[in-house]
């Protein structure tokens, strides 16, 4: 049994300083995640952050946990592999709206219905930040970018409604302008058994001059203060569809469903170096497999 040490926020502090633009919403997400991990007393060595590509996807480099900074849109499959290979790990997926709701949306939908035990934090700034300001799948209609100079024509994806309909078992929203609330929501998401989505308004101060801190501050309300029942599917969907003057934050939907755990690997996955010099199959198993072919 390992000695009981208290995990502090400092334990998650990376030597690499984030290179996000000053005031980028992603700073708050990083500290929110660190707060949540600290609150839950998860050891840095047992946490894995997995991301795709984007400003937001740089997060794993800025936190002291094991990390995998993968390809644009592929964070969920990588994280799925990590979790299946070692279910003891706490796997947190981080990324942007383009990464998760654009190029990677197929994986997102299947992760929802699979209900694999991952926490998914989407830093939704409604724009492509890293590639310097193109339209994103969550950009609002009429939103002007380099690639939509006449204004965006496409209906934005509603990630929360999509997640609820897609079979998610935990759906929440947070806002970088309210870091304590965000840390609380992220902690609940990590604690949740199954796939947990936290869509986070994380303003891109450089390329999105519409959906700013101010924009959200004026509009957000907290579901937990509004008597919302996250166990009520109909209410959850109604709240998820709210947009305009009032935009809800908090836990929209929470339910329990069997968690995908096809892998029964952890119990017999030895330290890799210990495998060397061995055989994958014992004699009896090998001979049985051979006998099947006779």
């Amino acid at each position, binding site marked *: 049994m390992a000695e009981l040490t208290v995990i502090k926020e400092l334990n998650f502090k990376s030597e690499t300083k984030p290179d996000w633009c000053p005031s980028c919403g992603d700073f708050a997400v990083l500290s929110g995640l660190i707060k949540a991990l600290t609150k839950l007393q998860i050891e840095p060595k047992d946490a894995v952050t997995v991301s795709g590509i984007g400003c937001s996807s740089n997060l794993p480099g800025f936190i002291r946990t094991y990390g995998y900074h993968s390809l644009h849109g592929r964070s969920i499959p990588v994280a799925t592999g990590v979790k299946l290979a070692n279910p003891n790990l706490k796997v947190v997926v981080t990324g942007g709206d383009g990464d998760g709701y654009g190029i990677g949306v197929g994986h997102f939908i299947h992760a929802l219905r699979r209900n694999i035990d991952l926490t998914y934090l989407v830093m939704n700034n409604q724009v492509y930040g890293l590639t310097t300001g193109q339209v994103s799948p969550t950009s609002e209609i009429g939103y002007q970018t380099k690639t939509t100079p006449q204004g965006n024509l496409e209906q934005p994806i509603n990630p929360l409604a999509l997640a609820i309909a897609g079979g998610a078992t935990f759906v929440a929203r947070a806002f970088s302008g309210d870091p304590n609330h965000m840390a609380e929501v992220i902690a609940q998401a990590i604690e949740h058994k199954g796939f947990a989505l936290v869509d986070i308004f994380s303003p891109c101060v450089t390329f999105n001059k519409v959906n700013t801190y101010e924009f959200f501050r004026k509009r957000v309300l907290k579901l937990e203060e509004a008597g919302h029942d996250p166990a009520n599917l109909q209410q959850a969907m109604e709240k998820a569809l709210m947009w305009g003057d009032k935009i809800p934050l908090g836990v929209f939907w929470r339910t329990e469903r069997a968690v995908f755990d096809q892998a029964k690997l952890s119990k017999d996955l030895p330290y890799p170096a210990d495998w060397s010099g*061995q055989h994958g199959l014992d004699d009896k198993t090998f001979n049985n497999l051979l006998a099947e072919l006779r």
Partner: protein
Amino acid sequence: MNSKIVDIWIAGAAGDGVQSTSEMLAKIAARCGLHVYIYNSYQSAIRGGYVYAQIRISAKKIRTPSDRWDILVALNTDSIERHKGWVKKEGVLIFNCDRAKAPGGLTGIGIPISEVVSNPLMQNTVFLGAACALTGLPLEKFEKAILEVFGKKSQEVKDANLKAAKEGAGRAKSLAGRFKLPVSDKSHILITGNQALAFGAAEGGVRFYSAYPMTPASGVLHWMADHAAKLGICVMQAEDEISVINMAIGASFAGARSMVATSGGGFALMTEAVGLAAMTETPLVAINVCRAGPSTGVPTKTEQGDLWQVLGAGQGDYPKAVIAPLDVEDCFYMVQHSLNLADRYQIPVLMISDLLLSEHNETLEALDPKRIKIDRGEWAGTNGAGQFLRYLYTPGGVSPRAKPGMPDQYIFTAASDDHRESGTLISDVDTDPVERKKMMEKRMRKMEGILKEMPPNVLIGEPKADLTLVGWGSGCGILTELVARAKEEGKKVNALAIRSVWPFLSKEVAGVLTKAKGVMMIENNFTGQMAKLIRQETGFEIPHLCLKYDGEPFYLESTWPMVQKALKGKAQAREVILTPYGLAEDKG
């Protein structure tokens, strides 16, 4: 020893039971210590299309499909017409004489199915009984096979089938033993290339296998899924091939030996992540079981057309190994070797198989579980203390690995962006030409070590010959048979079978080719892809290409004349074989 091959073809419409009937016959022969080679020619359609299977049986090992039959088991009338022209001298047709007549000049055993069995579904059993009589395969072995196949059915069904088999044997009495095979009390295993890859992977310690169904790679997935629970392997059918490979990379990052297999289309989707594995130095074995391309191509037909796709997979320069197993047995060992290479060098190892190799059944006398031991390469903590640098610059380019869950001191982030020794990024805001160059060189240094661990290519026949044939991967089968045929005819022909595709064993290959008197390439594709690679890597231009790209593999009888032409110095630069008359014809 009587080493004659008996060729039995079972032909009918899809849904007539061609496959189950041929497998039963093959199993009986294998259990009599005989060697068997089955080649199925089938269509994607589950029912209705035209299908035939070749079951080649002999006391010696058989390595290719053939062009001619000794016994044709016609499950429908149509197949008599289709195949009558390819009969060998003494050939015998087994057919239902309620429906058809034997064509003139053919010896036929016509069995009135409506008279001998009450249920027309038992026709195949009757015919198999007749085939056993012709070849001298003992009926007891047949009985055992029937009991297994109908194990769950009632005694009545089993008895009826046994009776049917005996009826069939009785009807063939006059020709009994015409194709007598030397039965022994040995028993061989019967296995496909896909099964050998999966079985070998399990023996090689694979703990994570993900895939998306795609012919002709699905056999690996099916074996894995079937055995997953018992063997403790996590088997995932993911939503697409992009997810497949990224999941496997995630699992490998977490410490599990991981593998994926697909066909060309799926491999195309995987390629970005092949580079990801190389960049993050995450071991992975990815197999491309080729079908005839391009695009959806001919899904149920074979081709060696993806060589350059595999060589060019993914953007940028990165270290990798590409191995093309030479036959079913080689699949079992090469997949284990590939898993070790992947771990030892922390690279993607790409394997190339094809429909012919992956889906045909053949017999093996044994598989040796002791030949290759698991080698998981270098791990952190095994080489002293100090600050852990995941991508440490080392002389061989390999840096000791760590995985999540290991003590704090090993924490690192693996990134698809290029990075420093510690793993921090050297792209985006903070570019660093010096470190970038060093890191490129560190990764690429691995190629020197990999080159030394590539499996040797195989020279078939004597070192000195008048003609040297060259092939690769599954082509080894036809090369072996051509060399044997040449020997029978007193001609000096040898062959080089290439399985180390990348890094290329340039010196060794050049050594063979420059000394050869004449050289002919034998490849199952249009452009002679391996011949191009050989020219690129050795400067040697192979003067004659013998190619085939009609979807069918090389058959011995139609390929041998090309070798004869080359021996006479009459071969063209490009000789293209079309599958022998009739085979390619489709009246439907």
